């Protein structure tokens, strides 16, 4: 197998660059979402994204231009639901996800039928990354990384303890909104390659995996970024080599890394327990 040969194709270069940037965005945002117990927002958004893309493709509208505003609005809405403890947030998100999926599939079968476009929105496709998508990925990555560098301490405070952050004068709501907004963009841009059924794994897996071993916020963030990038690259190569679906291959690599980290983490815990017991 010649690694360099596969990256001589333009579509593979675009897939690698765009996908890596999206994976990094998803991993960074994912740490905060997972720790705030907002993981389901990512899942809900990806389904809403699918519904919007399916309708856009049926109505012959530009897919991203149509889907981005809808998913962004849904992001604020889902955030409100999750922050409001009176409504059962998880149930409400499940209702929204399945409804969006149903509407999308119905709209697609009534218009274009279940064509390759729809199939790739659901399961992802290595060929889907266009030149414009890559530009979007670069812009998004710059936004996410600038936010994480400038507001790192505020993001930590808001994620760890929103009540305390608010009491010390941090406008927690704004940071939650920025994170939800960037998550929405990451999901819409990433789902053409990963598929809407699997994009939320890019957000959830790296953070959960890192937390098996790493115990400080900073190390969890760095480890999530590394895991996400490595899993993506490995998954992409597997997908190309064995012609497996891209999204699914990346998730399987992520699962594999998660299992390794879980086992290692359990060993470390056992050793530490002995150390502190002494």
């Amino acid at each position: 197998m010649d690694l360099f040969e596969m990256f001589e194709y333009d579509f593979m270069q675009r897939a690698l660059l765009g996908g890596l940037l999206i994976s990094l965005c998803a991993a960074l945002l994912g740490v905060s979402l997972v720790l705030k117990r907002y993981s389901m927002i990512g899942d809900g958004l990806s389904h809403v994204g699918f519904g919007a893309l399916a309708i856009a493709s049926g109505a012959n509208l530009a897919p991203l231009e149509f889907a981005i505003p809808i998913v962004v609005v849904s992001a604020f809405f889902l955030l409100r639901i999750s922050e409001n403890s009176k409504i059962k947030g998880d149930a409400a998100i499940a209702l929204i996800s399945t409804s969006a999926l149903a509407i999308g599939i119905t709209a697609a079968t009534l218009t274009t039928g279940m064509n390759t476009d729809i199939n790739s929105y659901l399961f992802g496709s290595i060929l889907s990354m266009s030149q414009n998508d890559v530009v979007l990925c670069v812009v998004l990555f710059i936004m996410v990384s600038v936010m994480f560098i400038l507001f790192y301490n505020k993001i930590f405070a808001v994620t760890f303890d929103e009540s305390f952050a608010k009491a010390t004068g941090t406008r927690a709501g704004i940071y939650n909104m920025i994170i939800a907004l960037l998550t929405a963009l990451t999901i819409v841009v990433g789902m053409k390659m990963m598929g809407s059924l699997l994009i939320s794994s890019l957000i959830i897996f790296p953070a959960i995996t890192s937390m098996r071993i790493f115990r400080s916020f900073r190390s969890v963030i760095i480890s999530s970024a590394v895991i996400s990038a490595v899993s993506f690259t490995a998954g992409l190569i597997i997908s190309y080599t064995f012609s497996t679906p891209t999204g699914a291959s990346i998730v399987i690599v992520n699962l594999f890394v998660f299992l390794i980290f879980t086992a290692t983490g359990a060993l470390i815990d056992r050793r530490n327990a002995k150390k502190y017991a002494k």
Partner: protein
Amino acid sequence: MEELLKCEGVSFSYENTGVIKNLSFCVHSGDYLCIVGENGSGKSTLTRGILGLKSPAEGKIIRENGLKANEIGYLPQQTPAQKDFPANVFEVVLSGRLNSRGFRPFYSAEDKEIAVHNIHRLGIEELVRRSYRDLSGGQQQRVLLARALCAGKKMLLLDEPVTGLDPIVTEDMYKLINELNRKEGITIIMVSHDINASVKYATHILHLNGDKSFFGTTDEYIKSPMGRYFFSDEKTQLED
């Protein structure tokens, strides 16, 4: 003694029902005030009011002598999500300095010194590199108390700080808070369920009860009809 916080005829409503009506009280520098009352009596609403996160429907909450709302060292109740949060103790304590940052993104060397100072003050040096989620409940509360001290030099606002702690650790926590108050002159406002401990340590008691709330010194409280009812009641229950 200088006044730090003054409530004048304050009313709060919550979901259109008034929970606190026409409440007035005053906290002086060096006071140890316990806010007690049943569930739903408005303790957390008043807490949010003191922190400036909720404006009263009527009346005024005045912070005096340079006390700013964001300089009250707040110790909130722990959330379930926090218990297994991957953060080391230093990261948590240092985040107490966030209010000094404003729009500047990074902590200064001075912020780090203040964090280290408060870590020593609470005797948790050994925990500094440990992860918050590996600590016991009592250790976690000490870490959060150190963070609160980083945020507020003059006044701490503690929201049921001993919830979920075992009796020995609870007693340690009360003693520690008492020392911060008596030896270092830090003003304490504590929301509490525990009337016995409140009477034992506090200088003042605020008992929220609709429009018949009580505010006064602990001695006055014990002698008041309300204090006699609640306090002696609990005592006889304990003796039974």
